[in-house]
């Protein structure tokens, strides 16, 4: 287990020495350490942008810049494989610094450094940094997250997908954006979370006990989207990025500007993304373009040391095209589409045009926080968050109705939270909160079609506590929460004549978790996580009723469904036999009682559009289990090797059949070659990576319209470098995904019924920091 000091992303100690130094005779020196290995880092680059002076650390990690004038000084510290850091100091004397860098691509989670916050989790936390995110600037959230071992994505097309963690997604996996459970139409498998990863500072997954802090329907894990830490520098700084990808001719521009002004820290960020028809190995995917705009405003103010206010606003607005050939009217349409080598409506020419079928979505998040620290060890936090999710989906319709949405939903979400945290003298950390959430889902009556999900108001009251203590080689983290849910639903009958149906539901969901960690030695650590959680049936599982175009079937909800109950146990072991090798193993088992799933019925329902299979939401006992392996080999030379493997199996234990939509097993390996500098270039990195995804064989032929696609292997290459030009730091990179232009289909992408997945995609990126 890491101690608190190590959790600091980097630490700066000021050790002022002489006050007698004359102007322009001052020195800045320091030592640079790797936070994980605690070893000194040699060949790190230290550069002062305002003084145009720089140096490189020696083999002891030591550096020194002399003959400096007093005044404000910015230092930029970078090293291969590390997230670069900026340090701001007011130089009035010779200064000695200690700087911690994280020397890995997957860094420790950026835990808030406030002493009164419990660490995120006992499990080793893997996070994707802003650097990794920006190298995937044109991808959606779930696709970026696939860079973490054990994560996959489920969706409809390459840019409309949702993350899958250990077999759970959608209603069973919450996405936490800046501490707030992301609200929206999470039930739809083709509804991606409306979050731009470029606006985040880090992305990570909480698999253990820390997930208990969040309201919502997660059964075990949550995805954390954390904003960047607020600036500590009194000058205006910023960054800008341009990104181009060949597949879909996508372009991204992204900029941010920030300052810690007196009394108020602020940041503005924004991004624009656009791409046209994407391309498989051989043909264009018509109508798979996207247009997206994002904006973030972040303000933070501290008063009188004890009080702190924060304000965060983000907007995501996007227009997403769905493959034209994927809109079907009935089963025989699907059958004909399956027989095509190229989807219907495929065109020879590229186009940026986005027509129906398409989605137009806007998501607003406003969060206001008031923090009060009573003393060093105790504090309160009051949070309010408002979310507005507006979703319109357009289908191909008769008589110029294509401009009228076929689905139009507006969801308002209000969240209040009062949190208390404390740290006792004996080392106990304590956190507890009262939470309330109000969700109002409304069908905008403009569609001329019976709504897929009804109008409803959902109220949820929750409370939790979590305690944590570390002593000697042991650490314990446990907590419990309870949520009471009251739902008022107003639905329209699907029988003629149409009439109003009202339902009132109450649910009570307890959750509990326990995590233990033990350090056998410095090289061998283990964590055990046990958790019980409950999820009440989602609104679509209770009341959806009618034809679901996506699956060519009639889906019937069941208003009598009960809560799902999950018992999850996981154990992980990390072993570092020497400085070069690092191994990590994680195994989990998760039985879920009353698991809600769509069961095909022995009925074909005759309608005027033909006969459709009927699916009903039913409950059964399910079992998920999985294994994740990860290893790094770093011989401390220019070469580094990373490899990981994930295995998952899901079964319906009562029916003795596999669970559908479980990610296939996969192996990933990457070979990295790194050079500290070459001519004017610095931090040169080259990577060759290989991803092999197995065929999903754990499925019966009767469970799908077509057999899952065969296994596939994708090779990628990447190169990046940095360069200092005048006062600015430039970052360049090029990469190619699916280098050999392999034609493949992925089991979790619904588009696989109609078309191949993406072919080769070359990207270039250009970044600037000022």
């Amino acid at each position, binding site marked *: 287990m890491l101690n608190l000091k190590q959790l600091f992303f980097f630490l700066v100690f000021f050790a002022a020495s002489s006050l007698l130094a004359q102007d322009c005779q001052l020195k800045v020196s320091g030592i640079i350490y790797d936070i994980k290995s605690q070893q000194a880092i040699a060949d790190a680059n230290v550069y002062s942008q305002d003084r145009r002076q720089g140096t490189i650390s020696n083999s002891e990690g030591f550096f020194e810049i002399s003959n400096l004038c007093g005044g404000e000084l910015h230092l930029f510290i970078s090293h291969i494989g590390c997230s670069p850091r900026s340090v701001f100091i007011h130089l009035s004397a010779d200064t000695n610094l200690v700087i911690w860098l994280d020397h890995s691509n997957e860094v420790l989670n950026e835990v808030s450094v406030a002493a009164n916050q419990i660490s995120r989790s006992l499990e080793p936390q893997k996070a994707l940094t802003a650097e990794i995110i920006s190298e995937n600037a044109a991808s959606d959230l779930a696709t970026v997250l696939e860079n973490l071992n054990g994560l996959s994505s489920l969706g409809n097309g390459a840019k409309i997908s949702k993350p899958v963690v250990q077999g759970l997604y959608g209603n069973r996996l919450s996405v936490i954006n800046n501490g707030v459970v992301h609200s929206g139409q999470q039930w739809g498998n083709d509804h991606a979370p409306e979050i731009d990863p470029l606006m985040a500072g880090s992305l990570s997954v909480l698999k253990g006990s820390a997930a208990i802090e969040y309201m919502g329907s997660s059964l075990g894990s949550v995805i954390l989207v954390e904003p960047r830490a607020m600036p500590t520098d009194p000058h205006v700084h910023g960054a800008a990025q341009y990104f181009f990808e060949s597949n879909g001719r996508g372009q991204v521009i992204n900029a941010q500007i920030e300052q810690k002004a007196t009394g108020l820290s602020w940041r503005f960020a924004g991004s624009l993304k656009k791409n046209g028809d994407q391309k498989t190995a051989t043909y264009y995917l018509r109508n798979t373009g996207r247009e997206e705009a994002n904006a973030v405003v972040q303000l933070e103010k501290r008063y009188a040391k004890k009080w702190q206010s924060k304000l965060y606003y983000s907007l995501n607005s996007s227009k997403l095209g769905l493959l034209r050939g994927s809109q079907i009217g*009935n089963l025989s349409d699907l059958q004909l589409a399956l027989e095509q080598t190229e989807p219907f409506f495929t065109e020879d020419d590229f186009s940026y045009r986005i027509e129906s079928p398409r989605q137009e979505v806007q998501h607003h998040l406003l969060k206001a926080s008031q923090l009060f620290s009573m003393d060093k060890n105790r504090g309160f936090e009051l949070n309010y968050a408002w979310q507005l999710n507006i979703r319109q989906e357009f289908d191909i319709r008769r008589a110029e109705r294509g401009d009228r949405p076929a689905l139009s939903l507006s969801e308002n979400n209000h969240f209040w939270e009062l949190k208390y945290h404390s740290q006792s003298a004996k080392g106990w950390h304590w956190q507890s909160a009262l939470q*309330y959430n109000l969700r109002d889902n409304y069908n905008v009556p403009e569609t001329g079609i019976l709504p897929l999900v009804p109008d409803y108001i959902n109220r949820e009251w929750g409370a939790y506590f979590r305690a944590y203590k570390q002593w000697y080689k042991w650490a314990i983290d446990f907590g419990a929460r309870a949520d009471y849910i009251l739902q008022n639903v107003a639905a329209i009958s699907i029988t003629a004549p149409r009439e109003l149906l009202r339902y009132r539901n109450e649910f009570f969901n307890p959750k509990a978790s326990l995590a233990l960690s033990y350090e056998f030695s410095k090289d061998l650590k283990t964590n055990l996580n046990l958790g019980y959680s409950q999820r009440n049936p989602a609104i679509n599982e209770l009341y959806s009723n009618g034809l679901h175009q996506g699956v060519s079937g009639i889906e019937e909800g069941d208003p009598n469904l009960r809560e799902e109950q999950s018992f999850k146990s996981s154990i992980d072991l990390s072993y570092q036999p020497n400085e070069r090798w690092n191994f990590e193993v994680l195994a989990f088992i998760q039985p879920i009682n009353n698991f809600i799933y769509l069961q095909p019925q022995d009925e074909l*329902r005759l309608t005027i559009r033909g006969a459709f299979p009927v699916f009903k939401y039913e409950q059964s006992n399910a079992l998920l289990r999985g294994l994740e392996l990860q290893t790094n080999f770093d011989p401390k030379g220019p070469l580094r090797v990373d490899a990981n493997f994930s295995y998952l199996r899901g079964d319906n234990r009562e029916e003795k059949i596999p669970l559908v939509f479980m990610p296939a097993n996969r192996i990933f390996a990457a070979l990295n070659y790194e050079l500290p500098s070459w001519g004017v270039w610095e931090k040169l990195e080259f990577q060759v990576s290989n991803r092999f995804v197995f065929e999903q064989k754990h499925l019966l032929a009767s469970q799908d319209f077509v057999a899952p696609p065969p296994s596939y292997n994708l090779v990628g290459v990447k190169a990046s470098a940095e360069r200092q030009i005048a006062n600015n730091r430039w970052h360049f990179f090029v990469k190619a995904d699916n280098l050999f232009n392999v034609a493949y289909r992925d089991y979790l992408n619904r588009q696989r019924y109609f078309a191949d997945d993406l072919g080769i995609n070359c990207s270039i990126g250009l970044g600037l920091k000022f």
Partner: protein
Amino acid sequence: MKTTFKLFAAMFAFTALVACSEDEPEAPVIPNEEELITTLKWQLVSQDEQDTLNFLFRDLDGDGGNAPLVEISDLKANTSYNARISLLNELENPIEDITLEVAAEAEDHQFFYESSLSGLSLSYADSDLNGKPVGILSTITTTDESSGNLSITLLHMPDKFANGVEAGDRTAAGGETDISVSFTINVKP
């Protein structure tokens, strides 16, 4: 410290109180499902205008669970009929004739007729602005006595220039199905 705590407690109590009033969602607007097709009528008039046969498929609740109503008639052997399809939305008041919408977008629609009967042939008797068939009107000729099924499919946005589509083969047409009904046909002496 106690005052602060009270302040926070009061704020939370206030929000909780606001939260506790149980509002029902307002009654949703029942949509005007003007696009829905509830009924297909297929009328066959023998070319000597002696016989009028009516086929009907009516499903008033759309995708709902009530079974549709199907009515059929018998055809005569060695007879030619002029056939005409009409599509209705009988949930609307007055009843809406969807056939007009289809005819107005004739270039984007086509009816396909597939039969398993040996003694029955069918040909299109109308065309759109591109000279391609629409299939609202057709001609049916019977020869021998036989019986089997005839399916009627209406495709929206088919590729009417694709191979075989003009002749009534939908395989290469693409598009999505708006109507797909099947009638039992008996050709009697």
